[in-house]
C-alpha cells in the first residue's frame, strides 16, 4: 500500500510517500512495524496522541483494520482556515 506523510511527520521521516508491503492488521500494527525499522520512524511516531491517520483519505482511529486499504496517511492535527 502507499504510505503518505505530511507536515512535520514528512520532515521527520524524510519523505512524502513510500510503498510499504505489510501484513499489519491495524494502523497501530503498521506504526509498530515502521517504528521498529529505523529511528526516524520511531521519532515521528513517538507520541500517537500528536498524530492523525487517514485510510483511503478518510480520518480513522489507530485501531482501524488495514484490510483492503490502498493509501494510509499520517500527519499532525490539522491547522486549516
Amino acid at each position, binding site marked *: 500500500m502507499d504510505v503518505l506523510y505530511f507536515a512535520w511527520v514528512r520532515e521527520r521521516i524524510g519523505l512524502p510517500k513510500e510503498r510499504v508491503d505489510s501484513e499489519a492488521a491495524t494502523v497501530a500494527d503498521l506504526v509498530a512495524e515502521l517504528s521498529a525499522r529505523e529511528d526516524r520512524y520511531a521519532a515521528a511516531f513517538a507520541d500517537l496522541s500528536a498524530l492523525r491517520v487517514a485510510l483511503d483519505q*478518510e*480520518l480513522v482511529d489507530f485501531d482501524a483494520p488495514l484490510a483492503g486499504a490502498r493509501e494510509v496517511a499520517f*500527519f499532525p492535527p*490539522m*491547522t486549516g*482556515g
Partner: protein
Amino acid sequence: MRVVVQQEPFDFGAEAARFADGRHDMGAVVTFTGIVRDLAGGDLDAMEIEHYPGMTEKALTAIAEEAVARWSLGDALVIHRYGRMAPGERIMMVATAAPHRKDAFAAAEFLMDYLKSRAPFWKKEHGRAGAGWVAAKDEDEAALTRW
C-alpha cells in the same frame, strides 16, 4: 455549492459579490475570510500551507454538504489556498446563503470550525527567527463539540 482548492490568489470581492448576486429567496449572506496575520514586530516572512491533494477536496465537500443539509442553505462556497503566502494575503473564504440570518451565521461558523480541524491543511510559519509548524489549538478541537 462550490468547493475550490487552489494555489493562486482568489478575488474575494468578486467571489463575494457573485455569491450574493441574483438571490431572491435568500435574505442572508455571510462570508468569512481568513488572512495571513503577521507576527508581532512584523517578523513573519511567509505562511506556507501544505495539504493532502484528493483528501482535501473530499473533506471540504463533505463539510459543505453537511452545512447545506443541516441549515437548509440555498448555497455554500468554500475556497482554500495552499502554498506560500505573505502577511495580508487571503488564505481562504467561505460563504453561506440562507433565508434568515441565524442560519447563515451558524452554517458559516460550522464550516470554519470543521474546516479548521478536519480538512487536511497544515500551516508553517517562516519568520526571521526560523520556520515552524503551527500547532493545533485545543480550543479548535473543543469548538466542534457545540455542533
